[in-house]
C-alpha cells in the first residue's frame, strides 16, 4: 500500500483509495478558473547537517551535551536536597527552594531542547504524505450496522412487548432517585438560619480583636471600629465571674459569617435617620452589619467625610448617614442597621437583634 516518491518522500494511502471517496464527502478539487494551479510539494532540500559531516558531528555533540548536563543537574537536585539547610537564604530567597527549582527546571528544559534539536538537525526530515479517507463509514457499512441493530432489537422484542419495555424504562428511570435521595443528608434544611444572627438585646458590642467592651467615648468622630458580639469572647462580669465564649470551632465561624458589625461616629447633625430609627444610635455612633448585601464580603473601606462605606470586593457603596442606603455598585439592599444603646456600666450594647436578614439576598428573604 505504500509507494515512494522519487525524492524519498513516502506516500501512504489508507485502505480506501482516495479516488473512491463518495462525492459530497470531500470537496472535489476545483480546478476550473483557479488562478494559480497547485505547484505541488516543494522538493526536499537537504539541511546543512545532511551534507556537512562536520556540522552533523557538532549537532550530535550539542544534543549529547544537553542530555549530559541534564543528568548532572538532576543529580545536583538530589545532592542539594540533602546538602542545603532548608532555612538558609540566598538573596532573600530560600536557598534550597531556588536550587531545587533551578536544577529541576533546567534539567527538564535541557532534555526537551536536546530532543527537539535531535529531531530538527539529525532525524530524517522527509515530509510524508498520507491520504485522508472519508470520515464516515461506507454506505454498505452504515446499512449493515443499522440492519444488525434492527435485527437485534427485533429479536429482543423491545418494540413489540410494550409491557416489558415500559416497565423496564420505569424501573431504570427510578434508579436515579436513590442517588438523589441519599444526598439529602448533605446538610440540614435552611429553616430560619439565613435570617437570624446571634445578636440579642443586651449583648455588648465589643472590639473584634481583643473582645474588649466599648464606651461611647472610645469612638471618635470620623472613626470606624470593627466590632463583634461579646458572646464570641470570654466575658468578665462585674462580679468577677468569667463566662467562657459561647461558640467555638465551626459554630464560631458560622456565627462570624453573619454577626460582625462596624461602629462609626459622625456629627449627629449629619445623620438623617428614618423616623423609626431616631433612637438607634448613641451620640452619633451608629452600628451597621459588616456583611455586604451583595455577595457577603466583609465591608471595611470607610470614607469619613462623605460617611460612605465601600465593599473591597465589588465596590458596592453605602451611605451610613442615610440609613445605609446603596449609593453605588451592584448591591441592591441597604446595609442592615443594629439598634444600639448603653448598659448600666456605660458600655455599648445591642438594643435588639437585626430587624432584617444580613448578608446577600436569597429567594425566601422577601
Amino acid at each position, binding site marked *: 500500500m505504500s509507494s515512494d516518491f522519487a525524492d524519498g518522500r513516502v506516500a501512504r494511502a489508507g485502505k480506501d483509495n482516495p479516488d473512491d471517496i463518495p462525492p459530497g*464527502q470531500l470537496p472535489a*478539487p476545483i480546478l476550473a478558473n483557479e*488562478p494559480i494551479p497547485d505547484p505541488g*510539494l516543494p522538493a526536499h532540500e537537504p539541511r546543512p547537517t545532511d551534507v556537512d559531516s562536520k556540522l552533523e558531528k557538532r549537532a550530535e555533540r550539542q544534543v549529547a551535551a544537553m542530555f549530559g548536563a541534564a543528568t548532572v543537574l538532576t543529580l545536583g537536585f538530589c545532592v542539594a536536597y540533602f546538602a542545603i539547610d532548608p532555612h538558609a537564604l540566598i538573596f532573600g530567597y530560600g536557598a534550597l527552594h531556588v536550587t*531545587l527549582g533551578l536544577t529541576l527546571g533546567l534539567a*527538564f528544559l535541557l532534555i526537551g531542547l536536546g530532543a527537539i534539536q535531535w529531531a530538527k538537525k539529525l532525524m530524517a526530515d522527509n515530509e*510524508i504524505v498520507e491520504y485522508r479517507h472519508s470520515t464516515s463509514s461506507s454506505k454498505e457499512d452504515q446499512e449493515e450496522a443499522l440492519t444488525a441493530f434492527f435485527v437485534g432489537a427485533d429479536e429482543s422484542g423491545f418494540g413489540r412487548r410494550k409491557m416489558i419495555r415500559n416497565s423496564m424504562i420505569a424501573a431504570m428511570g427510578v434508579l436515579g432517585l436513590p442517588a438523589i435521595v441519599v444526598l439529602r443528608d448533605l446538610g440540614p434544611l435552611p429553616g430560619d438560619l439565613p435570617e437570624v444572627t446571634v445578636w440579642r438585646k443586651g449583648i455588648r458590642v465589643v472590639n473584634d480583636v481583643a473582645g474588649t467592651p466599648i464606651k461611647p467615648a472610645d469612638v471618635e468622630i470620623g472613626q470606624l471600629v470593627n466590632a463583634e458580639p461579646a458572646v464570641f469572647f470570654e466575658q468578665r462580669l462585674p462580679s468577677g465571674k468569667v463566662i467562657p465564649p459561647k461558640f467555638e470551632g465551626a459554630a464560631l465561624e458560622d456565627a462570624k459569617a453573619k454577626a460582625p458589625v462596624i461602629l462609626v461616629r459622625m456629627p449627629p447633625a449629619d445623620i438623617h435617620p428614618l423616623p423609626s430609627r431616631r433612637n438607634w444610635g448613641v451620640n452619633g455612633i451608629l452600628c451597621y452589619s459588616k456583611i455586604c448585601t451583595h455577595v457577603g464580603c466583609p465591608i471595611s473601606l470607610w470614607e469619613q467625610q462623605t460617611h460612605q462605606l465601600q465593599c473591597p*470586593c465589588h465596590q458596592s457603596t453605602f451611605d451610613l448617614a442615610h440609613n445605609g442606603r446603596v449609593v453605588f455598585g*451592584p448591591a441592591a439592599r441597604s446595609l442592615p442597621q443594629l439598634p444600639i444603646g448603653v448598659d448600666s456600666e456605660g458600655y455599648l450594647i445591642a438594643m435588639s437583634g437585626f430587624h432584617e436578614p444580613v448578608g446577600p439576598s436569597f429567594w425566601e428573604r422577601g
Partner: protein
Amino acid sequence: MSTATRRPAPDSPMAKLGGPAKWFDDRIGLAGLAKKQIRKVFPDHWSFMLGEIALWSFVILLITGVFLSLWFKPSMSEIDYNGTYAQLRGIKMSEAYASTLDISFDVRGGLLLRQMHHWAANIFLAGMTIHMLRIFFTGAFRKPREINWLIGLGMLMLGIIEGFAGYSLPDDLLSGTGLRIADGLIRSIPVVGTYLEFFIFGGQFPGDDFIPRLYIVHVLLIPGLLLALISAHMLILVYQKHTHWAGPGRTNRNVVGYPMLPIYAAKSGGFFFIVFGITALMGALMQINPIWMYGPYDPSQVTAGSQPDWYMGWLEGALRIMPNWETHVAGFTISWNVFIPGLAVMGFLFTLLALYPFVERWITGDQREHHVLDRPRNQPTRLGFGVAGITGYGLLWAAGGNDILATHLHLSLEAITWFMRFAIFIGPVVAFIIARRWAIALQRHDRESVMHGYETGVIVRSPEGAYSEIHSPISSERAYILTAHERRPKHSLVSREDVSGVRARKQGKERLRSRLSDFWFGDEIPKPTVSELEAAHEHTHEESPVVGDGHHVGIETGGQTGGDPFELDESTT
C-alpha cells in the same frame, strides 16, 4: 533515504525488540493498530502547539498534584499553629491552612511543588483558551470536528471550576473570600438557592464540611472527567487526522507532515520536558499565591484589592459592573444583580460557543468536510465575531480589576464602572465592524499581491517624468497559498412562487437564512479569475521596467533570473 522499508538486520540489537513485541501481540494483537499509528503523519505548525501546552500542563498538574496530596490535610478542624512560620504561631487555623503552611515551609521542595502546581493551572487554562481561539479563527471546528469542539468546551468549563476548587482548598483569607462570593452566587439561584447552599456547605457558610468535599471534587471527580475527555479528544483527533494549512501539495484529501516516530515523538515529547522545565523555573523564581501573607480565613475579615486567578477575572468583572437590580414578587426575592453575572453570563457564553459551529453551518449551507484551515482573513464575519468575543471578554476582565485600575491609573472607580457598563455592549459591536472590515482590507491586499506582485519600494521615473513604484511578482507557492481558499457560493433563496401556503414558515426561515448568508459573505473580495490575472499580467508586462543590476522585474522574467518562477508565465506569453 528510504524510510518505509528499512528494517533491522536479524543480528542487530533492534531485532531483539521483536521478542517482547511478539509476546504482547500474541496476547492482545496490537500489531495491526501499531503498524498504522507508529508512522502516523502530523502536520507541523507553531499554532498546533497551543493545545499541547494545555495537554502537558495537565500532566504536570497530575504529577505535582499527587505529590501535594501526600501532605495536604483537607480538614477544617481548628488547630493552634506551631510550625516554622513564626508570624502565625499560636494562631487558630484550619488543618487545611496549617498543612499548606507545612508544605510551603517544612517539606523540602514543597513550596516548589505548590508553586509549580499553581503556575501549571494558570498555564493549563491559558493554553486551552488560546487553543480554542486558534480553532475558532481557522475554522477547525467545521465538519467533521464539531464533536471535538464540544468536548474542548466541556474541558474548558471543567478546567475553570477545577482551578477555582484548587485555589480554594488552602483555606486562607483570599480563597475564603472567593468561597464566600461563591456562596453568595449559590444563594442567588431562584427557589432552591438556600437549600443548595445548605446541602453544599453542610449547613451554614462556612461550616466544616466544605473543604473535604471540595477536595474530593478537585482530586478525583473533575480530574477523572478531564482525563476521560482528553482521551476522547485525542482519539478523535487521531482518527480524523490533524487539519493542515493550505500550501503547495497540501489539499483537503491529504495530510502532509512528519511521522509520529521519530519526529513527532521527539518534538512533542521534548515539548513536554520544555513545558515542565519552564513551569519548574516559574515555580522556583516567580512567587504565586503566598498564602502565609494572607493569614487563615476569618469570615469577618477581607483584604482590599482581592483578585481571583486570571481565568475567573471576567466573571468577577461581570459581578462588579452589573446594575443593582433585584425583584420582589409575592414575598420572594430574585437577585438579578448576582444571578445574571455570577451564573447566567458563563452559561450564556458557553452556550453561544457550543452553538456556533452549527449556526455557521446553517447560514453558509456548507455540509462538506473541511481539513484545510481557513486563513482568518478569508472568513471576515467569523473573524469579526471572534474579535467581538475577545473584546467583550477583555472588557469584563478589565472590569474585574476596576479597583486596581482606579488606584494605579488615578481614575474614578465610579467612572470606570459606568464606562464598562456601556462598553460591554458597544465595544464588541465596534470591534466586530473594525475586525470584519480589516479582514476584507487584507483580502484586497492579497488580491493585489497575486495580481500585481509585492511593492518593492523602488521608485522609478519614466522619460516623461512620471514616477511609479516597481512591483515584483510573488512566488508561485505564495500565490497559490493566497488563492487556495474556495470561492463561496451565496445561499440562494427559494423563489416564492414555488412555495405553497402551508410551507410559509419554512420560507420565512429560508429568507432569514438567505439574508444572513448575504451578510456573511457580503463585501468579500473575490480572488482573481484566470482572465483577470492574465489581464493584470499583460498590464504589468507593459509597465514593467528593468532595474539597474539587470535584474528583470516583472512576470516576463519567468524562472530565468533566479528567485521563484511565476508559473503562469508560460501560458500567457
